[in-house]
């Protein structure tokens, strides 16, 4: 059956995935920032994302705003349930975002904004991972409202997903810098990316094994037909992407490691989607139940169908304008 709400679930999922990949490498660069060797490398790292971070972060606003628009009930349930991680993420993003500007405005306080850039990136990534884990665990709902406790989001599982996202984002960041730089910084990042890639795969393994035990429905889905087909296919695909990552790193390729790291993220995201479907908020709120009336979905869809391709177009153009390797010397004169 033609269901508007499913189209919208796909659009929201696309927005969130786009956010995770794009701001993922931004935040990853921030997480790796303290490892830079001296001011020149710091400036190069920050400058590699400075032209685009703002647009990347806008996908997060679309994720939140879109959820409010088309799945208001999901929005109304998820936000109070994840109150603390969300607030901490927002505060962290404030520090991260202003650091881009402030760092160049002061000599005395530069170290402060460097810490803000690193700390903001780290905390935002960790909180996003915790939010993901808490969502996978499931959110208790009664009478169209969050019915759980204030610390439900905190568990061994959510801390693990938090760490997984931090390491994964750092991998994205490292491979991004490999793509955008050359010389010693690139070599340094190739070295980090190797370890971060291994760490990411380890976390994916642990989280994947734990996930079926978070909810019996996940267990059935992944261990019985037809879902068990994915249980074979997905790890295979992730391993293929990992192979591309490591061979690309060993061969000193510019773009392949980044594309491989992005593929790993996309595959994990698809895996989460398989677990969730047809729910939008596990364990009990379905996509259809959470959706706004068709009139709202249709009105918002008309503009989305026109505007999102345009957004993708001019975003791609902006990336293209600022393409190529960053030459650290050109930041100075």
């Amino acid at each position, binding site marked *: 059956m033609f269901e508007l709400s499913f189209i919208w679930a796909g659009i929201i999922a696309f927005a969130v995935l786009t956010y995770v990949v794009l701001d993922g490498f931004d935040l990853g660069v921030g997480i790796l920032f303290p490892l830079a060797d001296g001011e020149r490398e710091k400036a190069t790292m920050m400058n590699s994302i400075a*032209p685009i971070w703002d647009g990347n972060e806008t996908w997060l606003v679309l994720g939140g705003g879109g959820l409010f628009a088309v799945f208001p009930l999901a929005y109304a349930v998820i936000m*109070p349930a994840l*109150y603390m991680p*969300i607030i901490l993420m927002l505060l962290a993003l404030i520090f991260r975002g202003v650091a881009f500007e402030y760092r*160049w405005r002061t000599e005395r306080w530069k170290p402060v904004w460097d810490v803000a850039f690193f700390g903001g990136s780290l905390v935002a990534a960790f909180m996003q991972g915790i939010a993901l884990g808490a969502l996978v665990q499931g959110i208790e709902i009664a009478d169209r*409202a969050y019915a759980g406790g204030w610390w439900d989001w905190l568990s061994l599982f959510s801390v693990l997903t938090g760490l997984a996202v931090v390491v994964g984002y750092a991998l994205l960041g490292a491979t991004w810098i490999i793509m955008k730089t050359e010389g010693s910084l690139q070599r340094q990042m190739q070295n980090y990316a190797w370890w971060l890639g291994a760490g990411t795969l380890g976390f994916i393994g642990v989280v994947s094994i734990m996930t079926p035990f978070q909810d019996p429905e996940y267990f059935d889905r992944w261990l019985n037909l037809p879902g068990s087909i994915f249980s074979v296919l997905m790890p295979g695909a992730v391993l293929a992407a990992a192979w591309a990552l490591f061979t690309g790193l060993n061969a000193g390729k510019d773009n392949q490691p980044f594309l491989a790291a992005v593929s790993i993220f996309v595959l994990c995201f698809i895996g989460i989607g398989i677990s969730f479907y047809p729910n939008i908020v596990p364990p009990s709120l379905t996509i259809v139940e959470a959706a706004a009336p068709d009139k709202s979905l249709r009105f918002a869809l008309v503009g989305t169908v026109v*505007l999102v391709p345009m957004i993708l177009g001019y975003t791609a153009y902006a990336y293209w304008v600022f393409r190529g390797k*960053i*030459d650290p010397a050109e930041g100075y004169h």
Partner: protein
Amino acid sequence: MFDSMTAETLARMQFAFTVSFHIIFPAFSIGLASYLAVLNGLWLRTRDETYLTLFNYWKKIFAVAFGMGVVSGIVMSYQFGTNWSVFSDKTGPVLGPLMAYEVLSAFFLEAGFLGIMLFGRERVGDKLHMFATAMVAFGTLMSATWILSVNSWMQTPAGYSINELGQFVPEDWWQIVFNPSFPYRLVHMVLAAYLTTALVVGGVGGLHLLRSREDAPARRMFSMAMWMLIVVAPLQIAAGDFHGINTLEHQPAKVMAMEGHYDSHPDGAPLILFGIPNPAEKRIDYAIQIPQASSLILKHEWGAPLDGLDTIPDEDEPPVAIVFWSFRVMVGLGFAMLGLGAWSLLRRMRGRLYEDRWLQRAAIAMGPMGFVAVLAGWVTTEVGRQPFTVYGLLRTSDSLAPVAAPAVAASLLAFIVVYFFVFGAGTFYLLRMMNKPAGTVHLGLKDGPIRTAGITPILQTNPDAIPGE
């Protein structure tokens, strides 16, 4: 610190605090984006380098202010859910799509073209650069349009019905978007943003004129700002009058609170200029008033009857004292802006626009007053909507998320600390930039990278360079 307060009070404080901080940046960047587009257009047309100098000067200031607006705005888009989830669930079907349109048609546009506007001139050429600059300005106006439509719908809801779950559901999108107070509020706010920017630009121009009367960019920006004031301030006062009449029609209780009319006036209401609202006794103490003037302003008729708050049930009454005062602050500042504009016009006609020291000092003093007026205006309209979130239909107390007071208190405290720290530092940097003359080559560090804002000049040699110099 917040022990005795309810979750509702705390959540309201948190929203008021974060939204007040946030509105300061868009109020400035909406006007400044348009100003930048005008400056760039004038530079391309006349090739007068003063315009380019001003463009390069204000674009750096814009970038810092815009960055602060972005990060404080993201908080807003999530706070609806964290603290006001019942409101979100109920109004989401109507308001959500409007906000989604704001993100899609405004935020992406601004973010996408900002980089090219700030540092892409040499990479894309003059024409595309002008296009990018215009897109950023257009994006800020689109953003204002959608978010004011949302706010106006909360003030004057239309085009909806209520379903069996208690949700507002859309019936007619045209009526929802163009709800009765929207056109008035949009015009009033966009003009306010233009005035705010004109005052800042005028204040900065005045400051540098005080230091050097021959500073060409300072003369140019001062002159442009003063023209803007004398044109826009009267328009704004007229727009405010129309907006007030519209509010009287749709939200009479708000106007009663603004006017301080506790009692009905069947034979024509006086305009209370000043006085001390006394909520306990339901009267204005020490009132200085002009007989019949309120009826004249609101009904444009001598002796027209006006109802007072005695016709409104107590539980539906907005907090009178706050609305009464904030309204007077806004109106007073509006007339002060008009006065500054008129003064500058007189001096200009005598050919002494750049000579009058006191005019420059007054412009500096008025520099931040646009922000004060914008905040006072928003306090008037938002507090005046209380005790409802959706006027007359959804009470604020019924909009709250199932949040515990300690959680809201902790996050409120965190927001206060972080905002004062982060935006305090940002404001300090902005003022330090404005303190330098427009001709300054570097507004940032002396030997730092040549990037002053969100964007990196990767290939560009020097964005501060002025071609032909």
